[in-house]
């Protein structure tokens, strides 16, 4: 089966400025990929190229004709000043299927409720979105992505600003959607420790560098030390991998700040 998305020697950037050069990787159906790296390294650039809102400066980004994204934006990208009920927000995921100038049908409403049920918050359907907790808002946005019946779920920093409990619940839900429904998932995050224990493959982006592999291939001290440019330790605790940067004198890392 051909991959859903293929980056072939793609150079990505803005204007004439290349942010990432010569990137090659693909996203096969059923993949659970974490796109990880520090802020400003180029994750959003790859994401924009993937979603089609940024054309590569060189090389190609090919998408399968059957591809349909279910996009979950960063929570703070959404304006909670809009007086919208949870069900109204979820319904937006079907707007393009409903068609221009047409109103949602009972069928669309039923699907929206099912999507909310799928992420465990159908009871909140008639509440204002602004009244929800961070985790509930995130579930609403995931339900909106699911209601459009996508074949790739793309989540942009899904646990940003969340506490430990909400983070664990959201990552657990995403993992469940992948395992239970066979959904292809791409999760963008700056938090390597959070993502590494849930995804199957990791694409690591650091300033000017890109490396992709299985979690076992990427989560090694050699690979991570090489990519981050500082000595890194990978420990295991109760089946979870934890990445820790080794302590260094301040001057050794001064040029990286």
């Amino acid at each position, binding site marked *: 089966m051909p991959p859903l998305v293929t980056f072939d020697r793609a150079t990505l950037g803005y204007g004439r400025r290349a942010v990432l050069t010569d990137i090659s990787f693909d996203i096969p159906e059923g993949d659970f990929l974490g796109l990880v790296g520090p802020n400003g390294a180029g994750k959003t650039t790859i994401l924009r190229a993937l*979603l089609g809102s940024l054309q590569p400066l060189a090389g190609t980004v090919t998408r399968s004709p059957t591809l349909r994204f279910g996009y979950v934006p960063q929570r703070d990208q959404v*304006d909670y000043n809009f007086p919208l009920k949870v069900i109204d927000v979820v319904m937006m995921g079907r*707007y393009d299927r409903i068609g*221009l*100038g047409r109103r949602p049908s009972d069928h669309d409403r039923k699907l929206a409720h099912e999507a909310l049920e799928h992420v465990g918050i159908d009871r909140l359907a008639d509440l204002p979105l602004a009244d929800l907790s961070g985790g509930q808002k995130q579930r609403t946005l995931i339900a909106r992505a699911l209601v459009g019946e996508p074949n790739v779920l793309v989540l942009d920093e899904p646990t940003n600003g969340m506490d430990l409990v909400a983070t664990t619940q959201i990552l657990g839900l995403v993992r469940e959607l992948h395992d239970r429904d066979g959904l292809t998932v791409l999760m963008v995050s700056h938090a390597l420790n959070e993502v590494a224990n849930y995804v199957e493959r990791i694409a690591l982006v650091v300033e000017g560098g890109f490396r992709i592999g299985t979690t076992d291939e990427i989560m090694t001290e050699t690979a991570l030390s090489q990519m981050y440019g500082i000595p890194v330790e990978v420990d295991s605790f109760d089946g979870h991998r934890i990445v820790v940067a080794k302590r260094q004198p301040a001057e050794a890392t001064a040029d990286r700040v």
Partner: protein
Amino acid sequence: MFSTVLLFREALYGALVIALACSVLGVYVVLRRIVFVGAALAQISSAGIALALFLTGAGIALGPVTHPTVMSLLLTIAAVMFFAGGARGRVPPDATIGVTYAVAAAFGILLIAKASHGEVHDIFLSGNILGITRNDTLVLLAVAVPVLVLHAVFYKELLFVSFDRETARTLGYNVRWWDLLLYLTLGIVIASAMQFAGVMLVFNFLVLPAVTGLLMSHTMRGLFFWSVASALGAAFIGFSLSVPFDLPSGPAISAASGVLVLIAWLGRKVAVRT
């Protein structure tokens, strides 16, 4: 009192049409946080009126282009295209809007000062609700009805791109085109209302009713309802009080809008506490 008001009923109908159109579009102006785009467009529109009067006074006739409404519409549409284009370079968007507002205001005043019968034409900048005739109301309706129908038909598209443009883009929405549609309808309504209502009242109708709506409701349907209801209410109350008390209509309507915002705010405070 009402018999006096009835004498000016054509003007009242015109004010109600302006209130209706502006208060619907104002919901987007407030929710999208483009209040100052509304202010800048209103100011540019009035500068267009001033330019038309200046050119006419100077004996420069360019056919229909020198009609105040046409010139106002042309300048407003040019500004709409500019604002809908989005951020430019290193200048922050709000600074660009500020520059546009300041320049348009200054040029408007300078042009009016040098237009023949400038003192008479000041009325165009501050509005002249009482001067609205039946024909004017029909023209306002001819503009407002298609704009409102367009907004009703494409409600979900305009809502989606306003609420979460990035996700809308991933679902294939051409966000820029929808922005342009919103700004264009906004520009057309502002330009057509400007010569009757003036900068202050048009800006008032674009902002205050929607704020009242936000304070009164938790749903989009409620927000639109209260925005329109409070605009129509303010127009009626302000107009009805201005005629018998010999007050300028525009400021009286704006003041009534302000009182309604205050009532809604107090009501919300009480509701939250109980």
